[in-house]
Every structure is written in C-alpha cells, then in structure tokens.
C-alpha cells in the first residue's frame, strides 16, 4: 500500500531557492529547507496533540469512551508495558504480531522473489505460472481468513498463512518488474561477451535489479503489517489487533487507542528499517 506515498522530498523544494550560484550555497539552502520542514512538521504534531487534548480532557467535547485523551492513552501504554492484558504485556502482544509478520514476509520472499525473477527471465516458466498466479491473485488476503481459520484454527499458522498471501504478491510482481526494468543493452552486451544465460542473470541482471527488489520487499512488508492486523481481529489469541478489538468490545477505549498507537509506531519503525537496509544493500539506488 505505501507505494504512492514515499515522496519524502517535496517537488518544489529547489524551485524557490532563488539564484543560488555556487554549490555550497545551494547545499546551505537545501539544509535550511530541510530544517524548516522538520520544524513545521514538529509544530503541527504539537498542535494536533494539543487539539486532541482540548477536545477531550480540556473542554470535554468528546466523551472519553469515544476518544480518550492523549494523556490517558499514554498512561495506558505505560501500564500495559508492565501489567498483562489478555494474558500478555504490551511487549508480548507486539512481539507476537511482529513474529507472524516476519515469518509470513520471509516465506513470501523465499517463494515469491525467485518465482518473480524466473517469471521475467524464462518465457516458458512465465507461460506456465503466470495464469495460475493471475487466477489466485484477485482473491484478497482478507477473503482467505475464514478458510484459513477452518483449515488451521486460530493459531499462529493461520495468521502466518494470511500474511504470506498478502506479502507474496508484491514479492512476485516487483521481482518480475525488477528484472524487466534492466537496461536491455546490458544484457545484450553481457551475452555478446560470451556470458551464459544463467551467468548474465546472476552477475548482470540481479545486481542491476536489486533496488527494485528492495522496494518490492518494502511494499511486501507494508502489506504484511497491514494484513496481520486484519488476521488478528479474527484469528488470534494474542497480538496488537486482537488487543484493540477485545478492548473495543469491552468498551475499554483507552486500551484500544493505546494498541493503535503502538501499531502505528511499529509500522513506522518497520518502514524506516527497510529503508535503511535498502540504502545499505543498494546505496546507488535513487528514490527509495
């Protein structure tokens, strides 16, 4: 899902810098713009939380059952860290969610990435597998949940399966796209110089397609994190999604919003981690 979003630098950042004549001057302006963005962003966060506080604890416009105040949510998070809620502490639930995500995401990569690369590289393989992939793909991972519960119960297996279904699609499609986007000149040159088809794949195509592969891995992780929450609403006895829904059914809005805040924070950290890994593995890639 986060495909459309990752436009970190705004487009007109460099447009209004005026006549920056030398490089160091331009760099200074760039840095100033970055600081400005950071400051404005921070300020708007503070304002948003202040408005949230005013609406709840401040002026009591919204009743705490509908929306607890930021203070109450923060206190609840603090409490959940040490006191177990539905059998586990916050860490227990968070690590349950993360474990399922990582297992399903890795399984998706182990199966999906090689499949995608082969689908792009070998016409025969593509002809044989793509129709099947195309038939199964429109069935959304969410629609698999009832079947997964019937087959595997509400244990870890069902959730890992759902996450796998959600993650494998971007793994396959982006691995395919990654190989397809390699400059054909590179491939022809490599073949011309006598490298075999497999050698070209391993030593030319794969390194060249690494940035897109990494981006695909990130989309897959985003999908995995999204779908694990859905799976936990239905097929779980632990996990942050399970905590949020259990608390909502018990009209415990503080715990629901505490769980949501943690879900958002973990989603943010996972995305940032993937970005860092991508930079480490493919530092030449732009726009990741």
């Amino acid at each position, binding site marked *: 899902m986060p495909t459309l979003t990752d436009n970190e630098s705004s487009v007109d950042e460099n447009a209004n810098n005026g006549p920056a004549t030398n490089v160091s001057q331009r760099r200074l302006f760039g840095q100033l713009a970055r600081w400005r963005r950071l400051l404005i962003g921070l300020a708007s966060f503070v304002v948003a939380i202040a408005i949230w506080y005013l609406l709840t604890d401040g002026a009591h416009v919204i009743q705490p059952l509908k929306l607890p105040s930021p203070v109450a949510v923060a206190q609840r998070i603090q409490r959940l860290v040490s006191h177990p809620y539905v059998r586990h502490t916050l860490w227990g639930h968070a690590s349950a969610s993360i474990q399922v995500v990582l297992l399903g995401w890795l399984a998706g990569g182990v199966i999906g990435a090689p499949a995608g690369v082969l689908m792009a590289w070998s016409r025969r393989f593509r002809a*044989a597998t793509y129709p099947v992939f195309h038939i199964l793909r429109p069935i959304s991972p969410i629609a698999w949940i009832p079947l997964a519960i*019937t087959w595997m119960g509400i244990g870890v297996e069902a959730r890992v399966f759902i996450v796998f279904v959600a993650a494998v699609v*971007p793994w396959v499609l982006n691995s395919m796209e990654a190989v397809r986007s390699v400059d054909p000149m590179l491939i022809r040159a490599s073949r011309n110089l006598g490298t075999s088809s497999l050698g070209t794949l391993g030593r030319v195509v794969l390194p060249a397609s690494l940035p897109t592969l990494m981006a695909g891995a990130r989309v897959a992780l985003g999908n995995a994190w*999204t779908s694990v929450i859905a799976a936990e*609403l239905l097929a779980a006895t632990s996990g942050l999604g399970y905590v949020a829904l259990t608390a909502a059914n018990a009209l415990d809005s503080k715990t629901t919003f505490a769980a949501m805040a943690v879900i958002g924070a973990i989603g943010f950290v996972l*995305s940032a981690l993937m970005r860092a890994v991508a930079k480490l593995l493919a530092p030449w890639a732009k726009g990741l």
Partner: protein
Amino acid sequence: MGEGALIVTTADADVVATRTKSSRWYKPDRDGWFDTGLGVTSVVALFVVWAVAAIITNHNHPGLVPTPVKVAKSFADLSTNSFAGHTLFGHVLSSLGRWGLGFVFAIVLGVPLGIIFGSITLVREAVSPIFEFLRYIPPFAWIPPAVLWFGSGQTSQALIVFIAAFPAIVISTQVAAANVDPALLRASRTLGAGHLRRLGQVITPIALPGVFAGVRVAASNGWMALIAAELIGGRVGVGFLIAQGEDYGATDIVMVGMVAIAITAAILDLIVIALSKRLTRWRKRAA
C-alpha cells in the same frame, strides 16, 4: 501497459517500479500456441490438484476442502436461493452500497484536499507529517474504534471504506497537482486566467491521469477493508456471507464468497479503468 512510453507508472498498488526505458527484450505474453498450451495445462493442473486434495481430505475430514464441482454447484444454488438472509447477488449489492458510500466520500473530500496539499506548500508541510503517521496505522486497525463509535453496523463499515480509500486519493492528487509544470501556470496567468479557471482548465486536466491512478488503488483498498469489516460484524454483505459459511463449517459457501469477492473487485477495477480512459481521452492525441 504502454510499451515504449517514456515513463510507465504502474497504477498497481503492489508494484513499485517505474520503467524509464522500454525493455525491448521483454515480450508480452503472446508467444504462440505452445505457451498458451503451457498456461492452460497449469490452470487445469491447479484444478486437478484441488480436486485430488478434496477427495483425499474428504476421507477423514468431510467438508474441509470442497471439490471444485461442489463449489460450482453452491455458486449456482446461492445465486437463486438465499443464504443468511439474501441471495449471493443481494449480499454483493449490499456490500457495494456501503463501499460506494465510503468511496464517494473519499473522493469528494480527498481530491480537493489533495489539490490544496499539492498547490500550497505550507499546508502540505504542516499537515503531511501527521497524515503520514496516521497512514502507518492500517485501515483494519480502525475497525475496533469504529465499533466503539458506531457499533458494528453500516456506518462503521462505510467509515472503514473511507479510511482505506482516502489516503491513496489525497496522495495521488497531491503529487499530480504539484507536478503541474509551473510554466503552464504562469502562461495561463499571463493570458488572463483567474484562479478558478487555472484550477479547472489547467491543473485538473493535467492532474487527472495521476488522480485516477490513486482512485484505482483506493477502490481496491476500500473493497478489501470492507470485507474485513463485514467479517467482524454486521448482518448482510459478502464478508458476512463467508463468515456465516465458516460458522456452519460450509467451506463451499466460503469459497463461493471468495470467488464473488474477487470477481466484484475485478469488475470495479475495470469500471475505474474504463472511466479513466474516457475522461482522459485527449491524452492519446497528445502523445
């Protein structure tokens, strides 16, 4: 897919890559009867494996995996007879109603907001960090608070569709509006166009294809989130249908629901594509 286009932006939520060169060595899938045969064989193999799995498991766990034939029969049966209150068509229609409600709200609020974000830098810089953070909370995570706010009925399900669809529309509109060539804006201003005319006759047509890419993603995100909301609560809809099938241990009904969900998603996608082509017909002439 636009072979040979300079930049091919995929409007697929799962695909990141933008191809900057037409990859001529890569041929699309029309490579003769042998490949078609391979494809048909593998699809047939899929159904054979399914049937065999159904027959084997039926020995010890009857009904765990229904045969393809049984699913087809249930499909025909559910099309005429009602299950859980409605026929299959009735459930799909009811889901579509709530999907439409959330989706229309997402467009009506998302497009103007995206244009504002895209054209006023200060607003974007102030709002987008909060917006971005909220996006790290998956739409499904809003189901519990929606239940708290509105119970598990129509309103909370439409709200979930809205939450799932809204960000894709805002972001694609914002990017599309921000990418309008400033020279064109200045030119239209020089020629005497006011703010409204520039918005209607310069920004909107240029940004429209980009907006539609987001609308397409939003349509499918919203549909998926609705199914999740229907699985959790409610009394009607395809998601409710498969949840009921699960409760009765009727895996054939669950599978009929899954197929109906996939077909509906595909039809919605086709409608959005057709609409986008119709509204951006001028593009072909330009290219």
